[in-house]
């Protein structure tokens, strides 16, 4: 129903801000200023509160006094009803910021005779507006005139005239109307109030109530066309324009430690990305809350604010349990860094949860938001709705640059990777905790199923809860798969024994070698002494022989000399032999 033509933004329609959380965002600034707006919806959908908040905020924040013409509730009832929203109507009335007027008609006493008009109503509204100088007017629920006054044709014509008249007066008006069967209003008022029509809806699905708001039309202005969830609580009305968020949020390069050093190592050494969405899923009792708490504890230690939504445990119980594994959260609660919000998911509808969460997040502005566990929302076949809600929450948290930490309980019977598949695309880092049953015992294994934007480990680690916190240990991967717990311990013992055996073997080998060397050396000594003995013997013999040879030569020389023969050659030969013998002896 967008009627925006190119260039039409040059003359922007003046708007009257409602200051109702979120509504001004959807409407691009508020309701059409000086024109009537039709707010329709079924019984109990919050029309009156919506209208009243518009007046109260106008009076308080924009100094625009407002007139509330009530056709159903008396002034006293109205004052009492909105007091629960924190509006002090009595005071505003006293200060002439709000004018309450109950218009009462008793149809049984009225007889019609001939033509009439509603000039009396005009006079009363006019008087009210003049009395306080009102800029805003609410007519709640003017349709009841149809049942109270005879001749609907006259009433219809007169109301049409009234709306025109209010428009001419330039007051911003809200007209509330009951939703009809197949029509927006019972009496077709939408035909006369064509500037802006807002539809409120209150439906119950799976025993939880969901309130939604939709801008059916807004003449001359662009507006969000979705159904937006809204909430009525002690702060009044709030609408969630979360679906309008895109994917163009800021992505941080900063990392935050998971609080478990070895898990940080698995996540390429630095932990999660700030502002990312972390999911820990696992079967019952695998330590999801413990991982969350460890993360929370170190975050608080860094001085960050953490908002912890717990849907299954009370904060005191959770803190007691965490103390038993050495994670002490109490001081951070006392310091105001950690806030717990415990609710049963069944207590409100999904939308209320979302709206409440977002309000709390807006108020506390946390660095980290924990939802423990998210699957508590899943009841029956509402996974799509849960996914939509989480998507909106994740988008919102990304916009806020808060790190989201979800836990999810998966059923052991299901294929674990599949159970949370409906939200997989929302998750940046997904840790899986699983039971590993070996040798009659149950141990916990942890691995990183996915982690966007980092080179994460593909290893399974054994996950242990000790009284000093969480520890991650290596696991053995053998032919039978992963070994944990006692199996791992026995494997470790076995390995230890084998190692010892090997060391002994080495020792023995070394000892033998040493012995051999010693034997060899001893033999060397014996051989040497034998040799030396032989050598000295030989040398002795050589000496004798030499002497004998010498003497022989000398005898020969003497003989030759006496015979005058060729002595020379023979002497040389003898000399050579002698030198060789000498060399051997050395």
């Amino acid at each position, binding site marked *: 129903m967008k009627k925006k033509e190119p260039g039409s933004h040059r003359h922007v329609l003046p708007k009257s801000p409602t200051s109702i959380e979120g509504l001004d965002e959807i409407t691009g600034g508020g309701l059409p200023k000086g024109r009537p707006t039709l707010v329709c919806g079924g019984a109990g959908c919050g029309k009156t509160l919506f209208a009243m908040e518009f007046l109260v905020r106008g009076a308080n924040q924009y100094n625009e006094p407002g007139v509330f013409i009530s056709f159903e509730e008396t002034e006293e009832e109205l004052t009492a009803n909105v007091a629960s929203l924190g509006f002090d109507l009595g005071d505003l009335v006293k200060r002439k910021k709000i004018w309450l*007027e109950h218009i009462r008609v008793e149809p049984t006493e009225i*007889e019609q*005779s*001939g*033509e009439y008009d509603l000039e*009396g*109503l005009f*006079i*009363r509204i006019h008087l009210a507006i003049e009395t306080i100088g009102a800029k805003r007017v609410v007519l709640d629920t003017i349709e009841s005139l149809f049942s109270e006054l005879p001749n609907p044709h006259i009433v219809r014509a007169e109301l049409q005239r009234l709306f025109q008249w209010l428009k001419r007066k330039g007051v911003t008006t809200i007209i509330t109307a009951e939703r009809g069967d197949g029509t927006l209003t019972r009496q077709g008022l939408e035909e006369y109030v064509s500037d802006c029509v807002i539809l409120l809806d209150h439906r119950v699905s799976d025993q939880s109530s969901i309130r939604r708001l939709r801008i059916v039309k807004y003449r001359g202005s662009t507006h969000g066309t979705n159904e937006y969830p809204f909430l009525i609580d002690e702060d009044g009305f709030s609408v969630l324009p979360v679906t309008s968020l895109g994917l163009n949020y800021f992505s941080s390069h900063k990392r935050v430690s998971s609080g478990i050093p070895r898990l940080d190592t698995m996540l390429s050494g630095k932990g999660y990305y700030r502002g990312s969405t972390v999911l820990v899923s696992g079967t019952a009792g695998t330590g999801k809350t413990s991982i969350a708490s460890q993360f929370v504890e170190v975050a608080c230690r860094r001085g960050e604010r953490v908002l912890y939504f717990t849907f299954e445990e009370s904060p005191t119980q959770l803190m007691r349990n965490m103390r038993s594994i050495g994670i002490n959260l109490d001081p951070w609660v006392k310091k105001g860094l950690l806030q717990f919000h415990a609710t049963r998911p069944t207590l409100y509808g999904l939308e209320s949860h979302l709206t409440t969460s977002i309000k709390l997040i807006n108020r506390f502005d946390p660095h980290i938001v924990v939802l423990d566990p998210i699957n508590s929302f899943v009841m029956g076949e509402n996974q799509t709705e849960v996914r939509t809600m989480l998507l909106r929450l994740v988008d919102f948290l990304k916009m806020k640059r808060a790190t989201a930490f979800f836990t999810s309980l998966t059923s052991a019977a299901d294929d674990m990777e599949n159970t949370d598949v409906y939200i997989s695309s929302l998750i940046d880092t997904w840790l899986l905790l699983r039971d590993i049953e070996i040798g009659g015992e149950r141990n916990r294994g942890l691995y990183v199923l996915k982690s966007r934007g980092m080179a994460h480990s593909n290893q399974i680690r054994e996950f242990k809860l000790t009284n000093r916190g969480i520890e991650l240990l290596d696991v053995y991967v053998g032919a039978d798969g992963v070994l944990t717990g006692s199996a791992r311990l026995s494997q470790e013992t076995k390995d230890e024994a084998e190692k010892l055996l090997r060391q002994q073997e080495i020792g023995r080998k070394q000892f033998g070698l040493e012995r051999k060397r010693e034997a060899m050396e001893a033999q060397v000594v014996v051989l040497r002494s034998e040799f030396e003995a032989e050598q000295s013997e030989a040398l002795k013999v050589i000496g004798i022989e030499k002497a004998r040879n010498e003497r022989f030569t000398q005898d020969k020389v003497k003989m030759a000399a006496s015979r005058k023969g060729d002595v020379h050659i023979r002497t040389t030969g003898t000399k050579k032999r002698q030198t060789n013998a000498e060399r051997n002896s050395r």
Partner: protein
Amino acid sequence: MPRAPKAGTRSDSWDLHLYVAGKTPKARAALGNLKLICEEKLKGKYNINVIDLLKNPQIARDDQILAVPTLVRKSPLPVRNVIGDLSNTERVLIGLGIIERNALKLR
């Protein structure tokens, strides 16, 4: 709002208020029609008080008047209202309680 009959008025005297907003044709018609009916049915025991809401807008609030013209029977009690220009005499008579509703059906 039921009011106690004014002091000095007899219990069978008719105190009628006619609320109008200015001297419109409908207002004039209503007053004319009312006078005729009263002269015929309540001669000597009625009192018509015409209230112009344009002059006294506060009265519209005090007396819970929306439609104009509105004829209110202030006394005898209970208070009864008739709206319109009173051009339908029978309706006025029923509205004021001068004739019974059933009487009309029988005719």
